[in-house]
């Protein structure tokens, strides 16, 4: 399965600022997925990032708040913009493995104060 390097692993940010999270995959993948996991809850898909096209956002998530870049087939970034305490969550990237399963990064634990 793919190996994903995600950073930062955690951060504490001031409200109103932005944080960019990076995910690097050790192999080329067509799609990368970004999830949010709010405290004590399950994972919710934010958007799907394809290389060379705009990301596809799920209901309740918008590009202005969560801009995504996908410059090549092994890398993607998610920015959490104009943060508020409600954005405190774990953010995870994921890719589909060749065998059909999905591998996740270790997550970025974001606390907004």
């Amino acid at each position, binding site marked *: *399965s793919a190996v994903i390097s*995600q950073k930062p692993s955690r951060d504490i940010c001031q409200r109103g600022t932005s944080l960019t999270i990076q995910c690097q995959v050790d192999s080329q993948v067509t*799609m990368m*997925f970004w999830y949010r996991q709010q405290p004590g*809850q*399950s*994972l*919710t*898909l934010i958007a*799907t990032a394809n290389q060379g096209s705009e990301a*596809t956002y*799920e209901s309740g998530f918008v590009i202005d708040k969560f801009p995504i870049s996908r410059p090549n087939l092994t890398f993607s970034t998610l920015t959490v913009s104009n943060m508020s305490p409600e954005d405190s969550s774990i953010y*995870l990237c*994921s890719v*589909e493995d060749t065998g*059909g*399963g*999905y*591998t*996740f*990064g*270790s*997550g970025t*634990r974001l606390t907004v104060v």
Partner: protein
Amino acid sequence: GESVGLHLPTLSVQEGDNSIINCAYSNSASDYFIWYKQESGKGPQFIIDIRSNMDKRQGQRVTVLLNKTVKHLSLQIAATQPGDSAVYFCAEKSSGTSYGKLTFGQGTILTVHP
């Protein structure tokens, strides 16, 4: 809308016992299911998967059962160990999605007492 839910939010077992974690799904078009284990401070780790053309699949100490009639999925862990303590999520993907969108259940906290 689509949803994947769990019957039991928490489960406590003694070391050596067998554990069963349940999951209900509502999308009859779902054709692929995955169980994940998430330890504190880590991302979800793949445990086992099953496709809708199967009823049962076994791994090392784990078995997944799929009942499509009642749209129910379960994860059985044999001889549960303290290292199995974690949050367990089921996830499903439907054949109707053109990309690999996973829908996750709410999670079950498994605590194994020595």
